[in-house]
């Protein structure tokens, strides 16, 4: 039983996560053990975690979405310019919109950008890296045009509810992230849409021959990614009560890191959403742990980059390891 559990990669990942919490706990005299410390880690991870869900759907089909930062920034700026009471910055005529209208606009923008990404990848057959690299830049450019380079503030006061309130003491973004992970796990494992995502990433030709509408799947995952980025952008905009160019910096790197550390194959077709959740938490623990022991941002960046490479290369070493153990 234990042997079988240990062969499960997600269990191994969980052990790594617990070990990291203990190590950083010891190094910081228990700061990370405290409920507050853990809550901070979760809160930090919520934005990346939500975006990583969308990224995982995309990567499972064998594609990648590096537009997240540009998409998120545009979503944030368009949303803020609907919600702001500053006349000169309001995109929609002057009166600040209600928080639900604002959130709806943000979701729509994200879904639309995802749809553009998806259509170009699925039907125009342009490689996803190229498409989303371009869309990233377009997103940043449009956000600068709309916001005029300013940080947009003075948002409808109630908008803070998405990022700052709590349910039973648990901050909304954490609840939101956990619910979305549960939902994603259900979709990926128990629906034919979810299994089709794996099939497309594993072997698109045989998925097609089995009657799966491959292009629709490739399109849909990018729309999902766009919606997830929107949810992340709503959270962060609500927490800051402002939209600026800096808030979502590095979101694509962090989401890809969470997905690969979570054990999803960068070639698609393989990996679990539970792994992605654990991967997200591992990265958050390392980030906050390094911060707590006084490492600079430069050190944190370097470590994060190294972790992506190590996590992604484990996959290459595994077949050889297996060969050895069976032959021995």
């Amino acid at each position, binding site marked *: 039983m234990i042997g079988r559990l240990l062969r499960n990669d997600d269990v191994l990942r969980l052990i790594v996560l617990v070990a990291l919490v203990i190590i950083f706990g010891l190094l910081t005299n228990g700061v990370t053990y405290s409920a507050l410390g853990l809550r901070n880690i979760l809160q930090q991870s919520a934005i990346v975690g939500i975006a990583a869900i969308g990224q995982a759907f995309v990567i499972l089909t064998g594609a990648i979405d590096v537009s997240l930062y540009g998409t998120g920034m545009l979503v944030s700026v368009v949303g803020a310019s609907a919600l702001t009471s500053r006349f000169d910055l309001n995109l929609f005529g002057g009166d600040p919109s209600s928080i639900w209208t604002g959130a709806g606009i943000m979701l729509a923008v994200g879904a639309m950008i995802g749809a553009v990404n998806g259509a170009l990848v699925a039907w125009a057959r342009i490689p996803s890296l190229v498409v989303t690299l371009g869309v990233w830049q377009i997103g940043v450019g449009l956000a600068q045009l709309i916001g005029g380079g300013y940080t947009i503030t003075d948002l409808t006061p109630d908008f803070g509810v998405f990022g700052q309130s709590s349910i039973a003491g648990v901050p909304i973004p954490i609840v939101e992230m956990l619910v979305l992970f549960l939902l994603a796990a*259900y979709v990926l*494992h*128990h*629906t*034919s849409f979810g*299994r*089709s995502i*794996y*099939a497309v*990433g*594993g*072997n698109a*030709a*045989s*998925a*097609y*021959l*089995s*009657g*799966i509408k491959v292009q629709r799947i490739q399109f849909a995952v990018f729309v999902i990614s766009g919606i997830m980025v929107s949810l992340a952008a709503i959270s962060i905009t609500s927490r800051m009560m402002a939209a600026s160019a800096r808030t979502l910096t590095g979101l694509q790197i962090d989401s890809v890191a969470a997905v690969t550390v979570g054990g999803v*194959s960068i070639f698609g*077709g*393989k990996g679990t959403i539970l792994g992605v959740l654990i991967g997200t938490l591992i990265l958050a623990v390392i980030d906050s742990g390094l911060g707590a022991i006084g490492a600079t941002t430069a050190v944190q960046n370097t470590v994060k980059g190294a972790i992506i490479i190590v996590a992604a290369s484990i996959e290459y070493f595994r077949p*050889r390891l297996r060969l*050895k153990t069976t*032959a021995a």
Partner: protein
Amino acid sequence: MNDIALSMVGISKSFGDVTVLNDVSLELRAGEVHALLGENGAGKSSLMKILMGVHQPDRGQLVLAGRPVRFSNPADAQRNRVSMVYQEFGLVPTLSVTENIFLGRLPMRFGRIDWPRARADATALLGRIGSRVSCEAIVGDLKVADQQEVEIARALSYDPLVFIMDEPSSALSRVEVDNLYGLVRVLKKSGIAIVYITHKLDEVFALANQVTILRDGKVAGTFAIRDLDMKTLVESMTGKPVSADAIRESAEASNVGNVIELEEFAAERMFSAVNFAVGRGSVVGVAGVIGAGKSELARAIVGALPHDADIRGKMIFQGAAVDPKTMTPNKARRLGIGFVSEDRQAEGIVQGHSVQFNIVLPALNRVSAGFLTAVGAARQLALSIMDVVGLRPREPAKLIGLLSGGNQQKVVIGKWLAAQSKFLILDEPTRGIDVTARQEIYDVIRREARDTGLGVLLLSSDMREILVASDRILVMVQGRITREVAPHEVTEHQLLEMIMPAGARSEKPMSDVLADAQ
């Protein structure tokens, strides 16, 4: 006479100016095996793509159980109980056996996938074809023969009236092929109409009731098996009279000495110590089943095994000792060793480039001055090599992907001749290649050996190939060279007995035999 399950009537199809099918008709009867033969490019796969709904015919009609039908895609064909076992691309390696069988149509219950039922149904299907594969195994971890069983179970899950098998025996060992034949006969008895696409002529006589031969997009003949002999069959395929046996000429006396000698040459866990030499101008065949260690032997000689492989022993090349531990493909090429891998697509050719590019690749030093490649010289070299290997038309600028498998393989062999190799290793050089191209490749190898003193190591699981092309035959079983025979001393059947792993000659199930072979 059985009922007609499906007929294709007057099918024609063109892509641009190229006519791939011209007025082709085919009748498939329930409970019969209909062999579909033809060289590469004859139109077999185009015809099956039309049957499966991948392409639509320009003219002609499909009639299924008396009703005209039109399939808009493979899923549509499968719903109408026409299904196919693909030669490749059939399975998703990262998913379980169960999921592969029911890909795209897993059973649902209360809006979610009914996993217990999916697994039970998959197990039942696998049981029906006598497979021992676990329904929870990941397909990428399975052996080729087991993957094929999954493919067959998947195709059967559509409860087909018409069942197409595309060269199903091409990657199987002898014992596995016997199992496959048994299965085909069982399916036939259950009243399914089977289309069996093959290159192997003996299979036709072992299995088929009817035979249709395609040539240049037209039907070159449809025969009942009792009206057909081997000679008629080959002549219908090639469109010209052929001599039944290949001509084998012995090496000339001027080709003396050894090009390579191996002493106690071994790779830990892959093959045990081998001792043999390949003489100048001679072709040494290594006969063995897939998995006997032949490919590992070949890769060890050119230094193309993974870095952690533990290689031992002595290698003497052209009279000089070479350390096999430090061998790399680059060093092998510089010494004059050419290697034609069994995986032509992945390791033989560079897709997306021209014939010329591929031929000149290992011979760049011959056509370069300093850093510059002399374009004219490269073209000349490519053209002369194309003449040597008999590649027509003489278009060095043509993209290699547009060539048939046989012609691609001629390019791969040609590139090593361009590099002026002294020793050529051929690993399964004619797998999946039509008979005419096969014969041409044997002729090129024999001629180069005789005329230029090229030493050749031919590794193959095709005993006919070994017998036709080799001067000496080494038999490899489970990583060991067990004996040496001369081609005139043995029959194909005796050779087949020799290459079987111990115990495999009895009536053991396929899975046990494979486990033994590992």
